[in-house]
């Protein structure tokens, strides 16, 4: 499988059934899962979260058009990557930035950012829904521009442990495929892509190595596109014949994107057919001229052919195409071609013209792009007898409807070739109608029947979990890397982790290879001590081998250096100070010195207490007597001091005499005698400690 010329396969082994929280990768489509529209794919791995695209569903308006943002917590998203400016990939960005808890960073290519602004402004103007229903307004779009960061093709960015870069995707100007790398696991999100070059765009690139997971669009499923020339001929033929029979041609398309390709085709065709010179072509959008200016700024993102054309003249400077700002500017007095937005025919100028022209069979509507389920464009393809106009009335549909797709998505041939070249072990299909996607999955499964390729088609909010058991690698750098250690040799250093990369280095190299540096902490402690310094010195010498005495240079006081680490100085008659550089051993040495000094303080008064111990013994004896007496009272009740030091115990008339010194008992009652003797013996042994040795 790994032959030269093919991308390298990854080193990952799929993890066994044992789940480790840290190695679980989750991908959840919040939109475009088994549908087309509102592309938004959530990915989370090792605590890092990425969101791919943020679009709206063209068939709906208001909140219903949004991806299912409630499924996740927007505040946990680190990075949001937008592949291109089409509405179903970028149009919910202002909403997401302004009206949810999202606080991460947003990235897109330069051309995408510039065109996004105008396309969304166009969208806001064109979709005349109620103010309440608007998800965002011009202000939100402008505000979002500040937050969007720009990334160039092939430029690697690193945000919070997430690395990413993008490849050319074809499709529209500035469209990108993003490759994201988190802890060595790579995910490729294609967005919308096309591997066929056209008049002004490059074909999609193939990444140089294969990702672990490929999230790929499946718009055209198992269909195959007709060859480019045939497609273009069909397009121009339909327009030509419609004009010849006196009809008008409506081409619903958004102001920017595939429209530019179509205009280039029409311009070329008109130049080659002077008989059409009287038939005007209109490019209708409120922002037509501004959009074109922006488009022309980014010729560097276009293919070589058109860049070369620019050397002589601006290919977008159309001689046969004029711009139209609104329907008021339009005089409908002869056959013409009008390209108007939106492409879905849901509202706006294209809808107004459609309503006007749909009942005349001479007219034609050429749909040049993919039609999303639920939109009027999709409905009329089936040529129903009647349609509902914007004002609610019905009208017969007599105009000719043609679907000629220029939408620059990969067809089955391109998809299968692309995946065969990449050979990703996991393929996630998004951005396709459920049936079409199902057919694609079947065909791809049989295509990859030999290998271990998993193909998944999740629905919206359906999470896909994968486990990756990646090896952690730590590289030694600097001094430690100078010599390869032998087997069995001990290597020690600091392990520095940055994002997901690990390095081992010597502490001295820390400031060279990282932004960290080591510092020394000098500690100082002062202890009250009024004894002789010599005592301390003497005791320290008993514990430590190396005790050097000297005189401190600055203050002239006697000082000791213990164990080559701690300096003890006699600052004054009443206190000592210790100085040392903090490290585990020095801390231990200083602790022991502190204990020693404090001990010395405590011991000194003992010398004068010697005489007290004698007195203590006398007190002890008195105490013992009291205790013995109290215990006997508690046992026998009536205990009195008799003459000659004996105790007289009286129990129920029986009298016992107890000699405290010997423990002998005199009593007529044998039972009482025994009891007293035993009791006294026990009391005595409890009060006086048991001698350790049998002396």
């Amino acid at each position, binding site marked *: 499988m790994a032959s030269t010329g093919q991308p390298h396969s990854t080193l990952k082994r799929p993890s066994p059934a044992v789940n480790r929280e840290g190695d679980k990768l989750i991908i959840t489509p919040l939109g475009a899962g088994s549908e087309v529209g509102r592309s938004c794919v959530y990915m989370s791995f090792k605590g890092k979260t990425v969101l791919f695209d943020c679009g709206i569903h063209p068939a709906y308006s208001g909140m219903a058009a949004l991806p299912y943002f409630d499924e996740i917590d927007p505040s946990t998203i680190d990075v949001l990557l937008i592949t291109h400016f089409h509405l179903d990939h970028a149009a919910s960005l202002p909403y997401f930035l302004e009206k949810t*808890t999202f606080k991460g960073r947003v990235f897109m290519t330069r051309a995408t950012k510039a065109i996004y602004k105008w396309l969304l402004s166009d969208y806001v103007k064109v979709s005349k829904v109620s103010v309440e229903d608007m998800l965002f307004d011009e202000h939100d779009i402008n505000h979002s521009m500040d937050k969007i960061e720009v990334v160039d093709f092939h430029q690697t960015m690193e945000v919070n442990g997430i690395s990413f870069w993008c490849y050319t995707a074809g499709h529209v100007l500035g469209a990108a495929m993003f490759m994201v790398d988190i802890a060595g696991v790579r995910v490729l999100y294609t967005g919308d892509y096309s591997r066929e070059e056209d008049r002004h765009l490059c074909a999609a690139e193939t990444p140089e190595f294969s990702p672990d997971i490929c999230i790929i669009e499946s718009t055209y499923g198992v269909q195959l596109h007709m060859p480019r020339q045939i497609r273009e001929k069909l397009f121009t033929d339909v327009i030509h014949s419609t004009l010849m029979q006196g009809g008008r041609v409506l081409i619903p398309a958004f102001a920017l994107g595939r429209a530019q390709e179509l205009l280039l085709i029409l311009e070329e065709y008109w130049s080659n057919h002077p008989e059409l010179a009287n038939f005007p072509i209109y490019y209708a959008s409120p922002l037509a001229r501004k959009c074109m200016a922006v488009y022309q700024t980014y010729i560097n993102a276009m293919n070589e052919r058109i860049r070369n054309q620019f050397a002589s003249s601006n290919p977008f400077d159309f001689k046969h195409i004029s711009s139209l700002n609104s329907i008021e500017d339009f005089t409908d007095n002869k056959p013409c071609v009008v390209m108007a937005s939106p492409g879905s025919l849901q509202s706006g100028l294209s809808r107004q013209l459609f309503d006007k022209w749909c009942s005349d069979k001479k007219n034609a509507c050429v749909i040049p792009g993919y039609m999303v389920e639920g939109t009027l464009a999709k409905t009329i393809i089936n040529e129903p007898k009647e349609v509902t106009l914007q004002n609610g009335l019905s009208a017969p549909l007599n105009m000719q409807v043609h679907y000629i797709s220029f939408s620059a998505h990969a067809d089955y041939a391109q998809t299968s070739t692309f995946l065969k070249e990449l050979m990703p072990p996991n393929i996630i299909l998004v951005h396709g109608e459920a049936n079409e996607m199902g057919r694609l999955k079947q065909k791809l499964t049989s295509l990859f029947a030999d290998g271990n390729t998993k193909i998944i088609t999740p629905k919206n909010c359906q999470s896909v979990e994968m486990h990756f058991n990646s090896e952690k690698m730590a590289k030694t750098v600097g001094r430690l890397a100078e010599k390869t250690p032998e087997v069995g040799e001990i290597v020690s250093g600091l392990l520095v982790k940055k994002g997901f990369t690990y390095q081992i280095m010597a502490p001295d190299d820390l400031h060279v290879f990282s932004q960290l540096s080591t510092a020394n902490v000098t500690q100082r402690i002062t202890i009250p001590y009024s004894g002789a310094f010599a005592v301390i010195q003497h005791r320290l010498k008993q514990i430590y081998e190396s005790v050097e005495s000297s005189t401190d240079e600055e203050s002239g006081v006697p000082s000791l250096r213990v164990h080559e680490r701690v300096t003890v100085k006699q600052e004054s008659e009443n206190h000592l100070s210790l100085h040392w550089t903090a490290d585990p051993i020095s801390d231990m040495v200083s602790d022991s010195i502190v204990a020693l000094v404090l001990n010395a303080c405590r011991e000194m008064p003992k010398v004068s207490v010697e005489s007290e111990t004698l007195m203590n013994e006398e007190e002890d004896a008195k105490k013992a007597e009291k205790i013995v007496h109290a215990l006997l009272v508690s046992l026998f009740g009536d205990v009195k001091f008799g003459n000659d030091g004996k105790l007289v115990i009286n129990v129920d008339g029986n009298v016992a005499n107890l000699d405290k010194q010997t423990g002998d008992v005199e009593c007529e009652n044998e039972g009482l005698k025994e009891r007293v003797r035993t009791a006294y013996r026990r009391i005595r042994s409890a009060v006086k400690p048991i001698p350790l040795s049998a002396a």
Partner: protein
Amino acid sequence: MSIHFKFRSCPSFDSVDIDGRPSISVRELRLKIIRRKNLNICQDFDLVFSDALSGQEYNDENFQISSGSSVIVKRVPAGTIPSATK
């Protein structure tokens, strides 16, 4: 007399008026919010309600939510909650 609600991904609360009633059923609240947010143009989603303070989901359609309560709304694709009745 209103119920405060917020979609899970939104930072701030909105409110619906419940016409002076002391409480409103989950079913009715759902309809009100759908109408308020113009979500009735498509059928492919469901709304899941949960209490903002305790996090507990309101699974019973007839459960009465009292006025002044705060509710978190989660918009999910249709068919993901087996218990909800349309």
